[in-house]
């Protein structure tokens, strides 16, 4: 058990709260930096995907996990980013400018979608974003002169001012850099008034408002930031796959994204990464286990969907805090050994909710 003796406010503000944080996150960073020399190319590609999905996950986490607005059409932002990047890169624009445009356009679209979010809540917001997802998918498929329609579009390798990143290793480092930057940005927001305002809106709008938080501003801001991160993720996704088509940004992708953050652990930055690892490794696990299952199950179509569904149901029932919540429990168990009590993470049922102003 670690007891921190606090002597100044900076200790509460710093990202690394104690030596343990510094040590473990430095170790993780070193591992990630050394990854190209440690892992085979295939696994490095998987790790790249994890980083890309983590960037998108961070965006969705900001929106759903920290501001409490659920988007069922997040793949649309991914698509807008991916297509912007593809079109601009193919026009010969350098990577940084194309990326900025992809993020900017996604954010602008996010802003437009965020406006109805000021009026609708919960399930209705889900429906609004869902239909928005369909609209974008349809636009990508029909606007053939720009997007190439259902035939898809090829994407050239990223080009940073004459330096062409056409190997997997170079691209991995690019993704790592952006993922770290995105994480630091989100962490910074969360320790500043902006992030606190988001969390306040998630917990109680009426209360946030009575503390002087402008609901409309922060909700649209959250949508725009979330969409911008999805746009960045989409741009990297386009480069990684080198070929994109509208059906990669359909409802299934949106649900995958939502699944990712719910399983990772809503309301935690770690959750975005854990969820991304889950989302990328699950198909591999299923593929590996297929050989050991009876044919009737192993070869059945839609096995992946069933497994995803079961896992999601299991998490909602048994571990609503997701993988990160599970890790917290394991960590507490280790820290307190042998004094861990079973009810430690049980939430007290709150009383007197009935009179809450809506």
């Amino acid at each position: 058990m670690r007891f921190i003796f606090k002597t100044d406010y900076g200790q509460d503000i710093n990202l690394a709260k104690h030596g343990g944080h510094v040590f473990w996150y430095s170790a993780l960073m070193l591992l990630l930096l050394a990854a190209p020399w440690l892992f085979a190319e295939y696994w490095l590609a998987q790790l790249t995907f994890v980083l890309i999905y983590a960037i998108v996950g961070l965006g969705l986490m900001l929106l759903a996990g920290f501001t409490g607005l659920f988007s069922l059409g997040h793949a649309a932002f991914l698509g807008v980013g991916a297509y912007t990047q593809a079109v601009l890169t193919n026009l010969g624009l350098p990577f940084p400018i194309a990326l900025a445009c992809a993020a900017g356009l996604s954010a602008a679209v996010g802003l437009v979608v965020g406006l109805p979010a000021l009026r609708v809540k919960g399930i209705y917001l889900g429906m609004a974003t869902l239909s928005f997802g369909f609209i974008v998918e349809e636009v990508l498929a029909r606007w053939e002169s720009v997007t190439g329609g259902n035939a898809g579009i090829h994407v050239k390798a990223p080009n940073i001012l004459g330096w062409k990143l056409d190997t997997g290793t170079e691209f991995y480092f690019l993704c790592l850099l952006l993922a770290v930057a995105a994480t630091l940005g989100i962490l910074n927001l969360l320790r500043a008034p902006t992030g606190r305002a988001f969390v306040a809106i998630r917990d109680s709008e009426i209360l946030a408002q009575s503390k002087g938080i402008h609901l409309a501003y922060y909700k649209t801001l959250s949508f725009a930031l979330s969409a911008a991160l999805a746009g960045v993720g989409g741009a990297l996704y386009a480069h990684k796959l080198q070929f994109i088509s509208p059906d990669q940004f359909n409802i299934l992708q949106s649900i995958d994204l939502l699944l990712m953050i719910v399983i990772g652990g809503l309301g935690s930055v770690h959750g975005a990464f854990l969820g991304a690892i889950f989302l990328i490794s699950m198909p591999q696990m299923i593929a590996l286990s297929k050989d050991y299952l009876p044919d009737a199950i192993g070869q059945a179509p839609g096995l992946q969907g069933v497994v995803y569904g079961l896992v999601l149901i299991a998490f909602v029932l048994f571990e609503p805090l997701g993988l990160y919540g599970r890790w917290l429990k394991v960590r507490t168990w280790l820290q307190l050994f042998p004094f861990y009590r079973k009810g430690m993470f049980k939430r007290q049922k709150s009383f007197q909710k009935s009179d809450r102003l809506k």
Partner: protein
Amino acid sequence: MSTTPLLSARDLTVRFGGVLAVNQVSFDVREGEVFTLIGPNGAGKTTVFNLISRIYTPTSGSISFAGQPLSSLPPHKVASLGIARTFQNIELFEHASVLHNLLIGRHTHRQTGLWSDLFFTGKAREAELKAREKAEEVIDFLDLQHYRDSLVAGLPYGIRKVVELARALCTEPKLLLLDEPSSGLNVEETDDMAFWIQDIQQELGITVLMVEHDMGLVSKVSDRVLAMNQGEVLAMGSPREVQSHPGVVEAYLGTIDDVSNLRRPAGAPLARPEAA
């Protein structure tokens, strides 16, 4: 104590469909006083609070704060004018620590924008340090040191009540609205609350407008009391005057006639329904 009204309500009326929740209520809250609204359940006290914090809009009538009309303001602007409130059924961010709750109270004093927050610039850090300093002052004032880092969800009711008061104080308000500060508190905690309200008035110089049922607390801390019943003003004055006002007694206990009908003449047998 000056006599200029800090908050003045004129002919406030609110109608929810056919229900007249507040009817022609006018009052002035003077700077530096503790002003209490009392009245039986459903008298419209909390509705008046919700009108001041702009959760509801009055059907007619007006409220002005320090000479500025409130009815045209969007709800989130009310806090930055210097009006802070607590809620009847504690509204705290339950999954956050006490300190975090207090820091949210500092929102109206934020000095940084999105970009400096995103990069956590030196300015953002400085602002954050200042916010924490202020929060610590309030923690000190209300003796919450012990609970600074605890999650609100795990705190007992009495402490939550104090945390909510602390968060309201963090906004450095000119006017503090307390909605039943003693509800759910035991005798000892109610006494503490009375001391704090007096301290808030005298040491911090904050004007307090509260709704309260506990008459002991009301008479201990209030300078003036307004009694309401069924949306209308019954009486206004010092706690003693209001408590002895016949209208107030009637609203709480019923009229003397109601009682005298029940009285049995001396010597008459007990009226038993089955004997009749």
